[in-house]
């Protein structure tokens, strides 16, 4: 039987271009220690550690969790390593939560990270492979044609992406952990930035960040203990889902992937969500390139197909403009992108909101929130719902 479980501790490093003051171990430990302190725990209280990160070539260390066992207090414990491409931070959170939901453990520490400055992600994504056509284009080059297909299909105006870029960077100004703080951000500034992959300007793409995220997932008993010790309430997990589909085949809709829709349907069934726009108070969704906000608004069922850009245009997803369904109040992936941790930051930010601890970017009285991450050629999806109420 599935046991109740909740996020009872949260930690994250400030995201920035180069964390030259710490090793990889120092980086992940910083987030882990912060999460433990938040939960009123020490490493001794942890039953198991689950680590996630994107491709190992992003740092040049093969299976780095082996070397991180000591830094994460895992010696003598089960340690697990997840890798599901860009969705990994979300999948890692889910794998950790299942260790509690299954009744096997009471308190699991989960950590995701990327120290991009140790290597070169663009290179790592572009290594030629036998039998495969080299893309030599990084992620933006891969997704730009899909975005153009979305524009063609939906008739969205060209400034939709720029609106998202501005909105998320304005949100980031409210988040002290965000990498990009651009106080002068404006539509004009985005438009005047260099065109990278039409229609994506430089400022419509995510940065390259060093950073780590950590959460403690606790059982019902652990959650009660943490709340009484710290006075901070848990964020209950109401549902979790993962879906994958193949990278390419003739019948695949890359603009509105079936795996994303199926994943959301499974998740909403578990969490009792019937009208996402009305039922959620906020969402943290993986938007590494601006246009993915309107695309995921549709994929996640916040509006009918073809109308996502209208929500963006109307300011519905802006916390600052008082939108009814604020998305990425933290600034999102567009403002911080430690790749392996980017998915976990989405999940972590939803928990922060539900616990009322988001500070300046807090959505007032957030009671139910959606976290989403995607990866690969928009083919891997992981999602969860967290809420104030015990499920």
């Amino acid at each position, binding site marked *: 039987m599935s046991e109740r479980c909740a996020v009872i501790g949260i930690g994250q490093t400030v995201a920035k271009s180069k964390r030259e003051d710490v090793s990889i171990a120092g980086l992940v430990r910083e987030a882990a220690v912060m999460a433990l302190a938040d939960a009123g725990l020490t490493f001794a209280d942890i039953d198991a550690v689950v680590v996630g990160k994107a491709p190992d070539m992003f740092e040049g260390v093969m299976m780095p969790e082996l070397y991180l066992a000591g830094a994460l207090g895992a010696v*003598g414990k089960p340690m697990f390593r997840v890798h599901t491409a860009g969705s990994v931070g979300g999948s890692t959170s889910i794998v950790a939560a299942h260790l509690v939901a299954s009744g096997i453990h009471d308190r699991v520490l989960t950590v995701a990270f990327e120290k991009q400055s140790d290597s070169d992600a663009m290179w790592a994504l572009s290594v030629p492979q036998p039998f495969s056509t080299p893309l030599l284009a990084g992620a933006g080059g891969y997704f730009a044609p899909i975005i153009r297909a979305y524009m063609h299909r939906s008739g969205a105006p060209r400034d939709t992406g720029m609106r998202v870029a501005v909105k998320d960077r304005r949100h980031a100004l409210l988040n002290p952990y965000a990498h990009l703080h651009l106080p002068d951000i404006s539509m004009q500034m985005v438009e005047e930035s260099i065109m990278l992959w039409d229609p994506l300007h430089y400022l419509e793409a995510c940065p390259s960040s060093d950073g780590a995220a950590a959460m403690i997932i606790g059982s019902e008993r652990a959650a009660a203990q943490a709340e009484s010790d710290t006075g901070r309430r848990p964020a209950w997990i109401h549902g979790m889902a993962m879906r994958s589909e193949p990278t390419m085949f003739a019948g695949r809709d890359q603009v509105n992937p079936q795996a994303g829709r199926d994943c959301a349907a499974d998740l909403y069934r578990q969490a009792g969500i019937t009208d996402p726009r009305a039922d959620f108070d906020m969402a943290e969704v993986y938007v590494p390139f601006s246009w993915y906000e309107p695309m995921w608004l549709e994929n996640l069922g916040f509006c009918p197909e073809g109308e996502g850009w209208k929500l963006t245009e109307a300011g519905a997803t802006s916390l600052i403009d008082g939108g009814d369904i604020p998305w990425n109040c933290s600034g999102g992936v567009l403002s911080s992108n430690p790749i392996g941790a980017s998915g976990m930051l989405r999940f972590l930010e939803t928990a922060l909101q539900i616990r009322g601890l988001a500070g300046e970017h807090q959505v007032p009285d957030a009671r139910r929130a959606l976290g989403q991450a995607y990866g690969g050629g928009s083919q891997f999806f992981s999602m969860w719902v967290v809420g104030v109420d015990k499920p």
Partner: protein
Amino acid sequence: VSGFPELTSGHRPVGVVSFAQHDNVRREGEHNDVEMLMPVVAEVFANIGITKDDVGFICSGSTDYLIGGPFSFVGALDAVGVWPPRAESHVEMDGAWALYEAWVLLQEGEIDSALVYAFGRSSPGDLSEILALQLDPYYLAPLWPDPTSLAALQAQSLIDVGRATEADFAAVASRARRSALTNPKAQLAYDRSPEELLREDYEVAPLRRHALPPLTDGCAAIVLAAGDRAYEWCERPAFITGIDHRIEAHALGARDLTRSPSTRLAGVKAGVAKARVDVAELHAPFAHQELILVDALELGDDVSISPSGGALAANPMMSAGLIRIGEASQAIWTGQADRAVAHATSGPCLQQNLVCVLEGV
């Protein structure tokens, strides 16, 4: 349904019901990872007459560094064909840990079955160099220590404390390769006496060639099924009555290399000693490591150790651990064993270990 073995309170009976592995070869040069996996995935389903649509979850284990590119698992999914979209996950670990993740999910009762697979080819690169990149990137990796040299340090420690001799290593290798003669999937099998093996030159003292694993390309797949479903698909499922994994410190200087406390603890948690063990399939890539594992799991002389030949007969990266679980399960299916132990390892000098106890009814 012949009933289920006794389980830890609250646990759901989950059994290994099908297993397939590729021929273990030095160089699978004709096929890429997907092409290597396809017949194995097809076989693991065909064995029990099911299709990919019959399993509730898919989990795989692999590592990018073997092919030198990111996301090696992404393309590999095409070996299954995840359309319509499926609940799926991947670990950058040996497939034995992918099986653990699937087992955890099966405990919750939402799904009744899972496909687990793992793959890895050692041939595209130089495994000695690649595995050096698995070490502490600041203090160890820049020295490029190769896995054989690290294992030799461990073997020498065993000799220094008086717990083993080079003849013991040769005896392990001789037995393993002789057992492998009856394993059609084995890569390296021979009938040579320990005395003969001791006449080989050192690779890295005190390890001679026989004490080293072969370089292998291969892959494997397993189907897990829970409760009654296990009996629908298998006459005598190999039920997992205990499974646990533990990790040790990474720095070799921080560990007693002659012992494997993580294996010992995982073995205790998995309940190895609760009853008689008939067969133990141990993932010991280097001959001396078998001695350390046998000691950690307190396996007696009556236990048949790695009748498949173990990792000394074939050592496909990322699936050699999963194959131990498959081989142990086969021993249950065929009635050779009623209770079997399977073990998987990862990291330098047995840093991380998983122990799985399998029982037939």
